[in-house]
């Protein structure tokens, strides 16, 4: 199962998608350009795949889950994270935002991962369905407010 998540500056968009890389959860706060983010995130999966395939063989076990910056576009930075079960998380942030450092992104991913684990533990959740968890929602909203710096 693979999951991607996307975050945006101000706006957080999270996608989770299983094996076929379809989105499980997308969230973006300025919803007017959602289509564009769809495309961006979808395209970034190529890079994720590439990174996994190159790094995966060498050390499958102690692989770092955090993939780092996938690629910068003109306006956004795209970060990736892959769990051991090949769930992909993608966060997109505004590239003009310099206050976000690698460590913060990493901790955001960790939080997302925890939250996602909680969702998966929910016995009423049918794996593969789009996630409609309120806890997830508040958590993602919380991610923004945590970082007031990049919120504004």
């Amino acid at each position, binding site marked *: 199962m693979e999951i991607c998540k996307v975050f945006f500056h101000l706006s957080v968009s999270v996608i989770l998608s299983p094996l*076929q890389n379809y989105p499980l959860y997308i969230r973006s706060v300025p919803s007017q350009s959602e289509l564009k983010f769809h*495309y961006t995130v*979808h*395209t*970034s999966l190529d*890079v994720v795949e590439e990174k996994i395939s190159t790094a995966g063989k060498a050390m499958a076990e102690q692989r770092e889950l955090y993939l780092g910056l996938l690629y910068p576009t003109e306006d956004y930075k795209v970060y990736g994270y892959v769990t051991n079960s090949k769930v992909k998380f993608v966060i997109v942030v505004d590239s003009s935002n310099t206050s976000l450092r690698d460590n913060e992104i990493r901790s955001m991913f960790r939080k997302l991962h925890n939250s996602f684990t909680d969702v998966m533990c929910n016995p009423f959740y049918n794996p593969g369905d789009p996630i409609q968890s309120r806890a997830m929602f508040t958590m993602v909203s919380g991610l923004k407010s945590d970082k007031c710096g990049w919120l504004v």
Partner: protein
Amino acid sequence: MAQCAQSVQEFIQDSFVPMVSVLCSEDAERVTRKNNLSFPELLRPFCRLTSEGHLRDPNNQVVVVKGLRISVTGVNTRSPNSGEVRKLLSQAVSGCQPPEGLPANVITAGDYDLNISDRSVKASVPWYSDWKEMLTQLSSSKYYTATTPWFEAYRENFLQSMPASDHEFLNHYLACMLVVSSREAVPTEQFLKLSQEQHRIQHSGEYTYPKWFIPNTLKYYVLLHDISDGDEQRADSVYEDMKQRYGTQGCYLLKINSRTGAAGPDEQMPDPWSQYLQKTNIHSPYEEGVLNNVENNISSEVDGLDLSDVVSEIHPLKLEQSADPGFPGNPSKAVNSADTARTQKQGSVTPGAAPTAHGACLTLNDHDRIRQFIQEFTFRGLLPHIEKNIRQLNDQLVSRKGLSRSLFSATKKWFGGGKVPEKSIAELKNTAGLLYPPEAPELQIRKMADLCFLVQHYELAYSCYHTAKKDFLSDQAMLYAAGSLEMAAVSAFLQSGAPRPYPAHYMETAIQTYRDVCKNMVLAERCALLSAEVLKSQAKYSDAATLLIKMTSEDSDLRSALLLEQAAHCFINMRSPMVRKFAFHMILSGHRYSKAGQKRHALRCYCQAMQVYKGKGWTLAEDHINFTIGRQSFTLRQPENAVAAFRHILINDSKQTATQQSAFLREYLYVYKSLSQPSNEGSLPQLPLPCVHSAQTRVFFGHEPRLAEGEKQAATHVWLDQEFDQEQAQLWAELEEQVVAVANRGSVHISFQPTQYCLSSHTENLRYPFAVVEEPMFVEVVFRNPLKVPLVLSDLSLLWKFTTKDFSKPQGGTTGETITNEKEAAAGKATALNDIISTEVIPEFTVGLEETKVARLKLLPHKTGELHVLGIVYNLGTREEDNSASEASQLMFVRGRQDLEIQGPRLNVTKEEKTSVRHGPDRRLDPIITPPMPLLEVFFINFPTGLLCGEIRKAWVEFVNVSAVPLAGLRVASTHPEFFTFGSATADLTPVTPTAAEHCSAYKTMVTPPSDAAVTLVSPAAFGITGDNRPTVVEIPLTGGVLGPGEALQIPLWLRGPDREGVHEISFLFYYEGLEKNAKLGHRVLRHKAVICASRSLSVRATACRSNTLPGRGKRDEREEERSGSMLVFVDVENINTSEAGVREFHIVQVSSSSRQWRLHKCINPAGDKDSKLASRERGKLCFRATRCRTQEATSDALEKYTFADLNLGNEQIVSSTTPCADFFFRRGPPSEPRKGGVITVGGLLRRQSLTPANSTDDSMTSIVRKCSEVELDIIVLWKAYVVEDNKQLILEGQLHVALQTIGKEACSLSQKEEAQEMVLLKFKPDLPPPASRPSLEQLSHLIKTCLHYPESYDHPFPQKSLCMVPVTLTLSNCSLAQVDVIIDLRHKTTSPESLEVHGSFTWLGQTQYKLQLRPQEVHGLSLKACFFQAGVYNLGTPRVFAKLAQSGTMCETSQQSAMPALIIINSV
């Protein structure tokens, strides 16, 4: 995958070729014109040399020139201006479309199977099924395996249209051919003229274009001889002369046109020109105008170029006038502007049809001659010329620098030593860098490098470029430097042998410089194209992609689109293909294509991207792509595909916003409208919206229910509003079965199926349902609107297919032809076939946003046959926000259909069915229309909704036969037969108008003062009661047994409130049939469900006990009665009504009894309590004496008859033995279980006996004992209630039944609610067998009735006589029908010491124990004497009586009840 037909090397070589100009005399031009060609065009197909050439470089190394191509153009051929170039390129691209019909090229990338040619898409996506049509429309020119030929066409045209530039010499003219015809009077003079002309063009400085490579341009003199026309010998002599003058290497005699006359049409000549000229011809405005008219019209605003502008801009005549003064035009206009002249001619004659016959006068020999000529020219003229120039330049350079002779060793030293060149204009320094004078040494190096490059001496070229680059860089001449960098990189790449690594960074710098410093996008683009091609050839796809993407910019959409597409192809060609990036860039590319007006290419790009996105859950992206595909398809006149794409957006559960959805919907409707308009005739297409839930479709046969008309209330029957309820359905089916059984005299046919009026997914739909002709049927369709936009369906009606059949004929009838209303419905004339089947049309039906709504559609068949409902047809539209644009909203409706296909339930019987998924048929939409049947309508008049428990109300019921066929066999079945009665057969059924009887009592009354009971004897058969069962089916008498068409029958109906309070649902099933048996439909039913709310009224409890009075006191006949037994009946009546406001009080009007053995005799209430009034919560007690009926043994027939005895408490006597009182008595409810009490009990006992066969005597005994305590008396309490309702006082009346069964046991009018069973312990051991049954003590105690007769007070003078003796009579009466042995024991048996004290003591005198035998029913008096010793009060009830049945043993002996205390007062006088 963007692979070229040529290799990269070939491509680059072909990009830079030696340029040769042509100056042609008019006569010569005329000669070539015969072939429809100008001279340069004539040569063009032969410009590639097939053989190798050789030359020597400055170091005397031999350089082999392979596959050299030269470019021959007219001297005044000018490179088009930027607008023209743009136009030209876009035409090149749009003229080149993907091919079709060749095997698809599938690229497997990861999980994706991508099909790069468009055909693929249809295989995977069903709605692309008609994609092929589109593809056939696309013109196909040439097919390269997985290529992008439009890109190559673009590139080729782009490179050709590159303007000559100052900073490089590659496309400067190296040589000039001077062509003169041999027919010229003096050819040599002509040559001279041309030569001067050339010199003037090059050196006069009048013209900036064309550019010349070297000052002393090679002049090559060509004598053109027309074989068919000219004198060959003269030509030869002229040629000899020329050889003298110009040397053999500088001139040539070309003989052409050896064919005389026009070529025969049968002769097949290869036409090598078409390939080249076709391409140029496309550029001609006329042809292109014709070709692209369609697209341009549609997309004129996108193109930004009006067609007329294009024409005027490129029109050859205008061109001349507004010609750039930099071009050598006027002097040799007619000859040398051949290209344009030709197009002009063609354009004026027949546009588009011209380029048919090229080289019509040329034979194959001529072709060979031309080829020979080019070869001669190149090897003898051009190459030596170049070689010479290289040497010259080399020498010059070496000498000028004054350094080492070897250029190669010198390069390093030049580095940094470049002098500052003269600047013509100082201001230019910042922008395009510097302008060198043509003779500057830096330019000489560059010139030499270019020469070397042209003759494929790449090593030397590289080193020269490298040197030049350094010079230019140090001079900050950026444009020159970039050019050198570019060429250095290219020549480094082209070096064979052990090449140095391709210097990609050179290219990058070059591109950057061109773009950023020089702002020259054209050069930058050329550079990028070259570099990308090189990178691709080295499998550096990601670099190539980056490079290409960088080159996309705002200024040219077409270029951006092409480059993005190439980048996308690069992504997919990577070692691990980046499919998603491919898709993304395809979309970007498609977007740019569409901006550039290249609709077809845009569509193609989107379709390819769609392969990646579809079905992956990226809905927004998918919708976007679909939407764009739809739009593009539509503008390309492919509305089917557009509709398919839009449909796809709408069908899926969209996550779009409402406005977006409404936009999609409008677009869809618009497209659909334009699609369907031309083809009004064909079958209607399927509409995607709204969703129809076929499985939930319901079908109803019959009329719509009428609303209640005033007091008349129609039977509820069945209607679509009622939800399906399994229990109800079961109940109705059972009722129907019962009534059918009665109608068929007790038997039900095996194939009996309950009639179903409403078919839904819950009913069994295996059989074809029956509908009756001239009766409507309704189809209820469930619509769901998935969008956030309201949908409006108008002119909604059903589609059907009908086969007429005449069922009245034997064996199935004759089958007529099949008719369908599809065509009529498509044309909007749904009512056209109304003489066969009337189809109702719903004018407008709105489905709100995300709403589920049902529509009911009506059909009325007028003929018998088989009907099939196929689907629905409607106009789909959307609610316009503004009503002002009513016309526009009119346009937004499209007509279409949706089919109703219902899948039956899954079969699961056989093994095969279990293992596979199979569905049974569902026939609910395929009714059989049967011949007419009677149709009953039932109305209830004055039918109440609320009743008191036991209340009697009279209502009327009306039966109307609304059909044209007589009706018979009317019956009704009900779940609650005790609730209603139509009256007994004896009752007067003459219809009285309901109003007249409104305020009268429902009962039949007589005025009589209260007195003894009036007695009537009634047989239950008179009330339709046979046997013991309550009748559930009642036949309704019709006059003559038939209800004629249109006739109505009104009969009274009495209702009695249910005994139990609460809401009661009472189901009536009316059954009827036609006079003649219909094979299809035997009977019909009508359902009615009444809801009655019963509220509490009175509660009646009654007990019976034996009277202890002795006979002999009353009259003789009384005594007689006494003898046969009498009872006291106590009736407790309590008002338990809770609504104090409504019901004021109850009056007990009368108490009647009904029994076969007993009757009420007399009211023995205390006097003065005549009107037994009961206010709320009051309770009253009534006491009656009951006696056995006298007639009991009179006739055997009487046993079955019931005696009704009425005891009225007021002045009115209600005749309880008539309707409705007796009816309800006989129909009373369930507590009637032991109707023949004793017998049933015996039966029960017998059954028990079989279990314990030990003592049979016991049982017979028991029965006897039992019987004597048995009483079978039903009390009917008739009451009136005074009710205030709406300030009006109403009198309600009613009756309550109490069944007394056993003496001493209380019976209640309210059947006791069974208490919910407590949890029962599970028992693991079997129950012990029931103990041997024997009469209980209580029962035995009723065997003998005892009674003590004595004076109540007795005076005795104790002082005189100390002993007082009082006579007492003990009366014993045997209640049973058997002999009883009685033992009377008078001995005191003091059980407790207290009793002694209380009673004092007295003694019985005489015999202390008697033993008697009493015959059945015998009364025996026993005289006793009591003896008292003192005055006081004594209880005489001490004798103990033991009784036993005579036959049985002593064991069942038991003491009779010691009765109540019999007190005697002994007074002392």
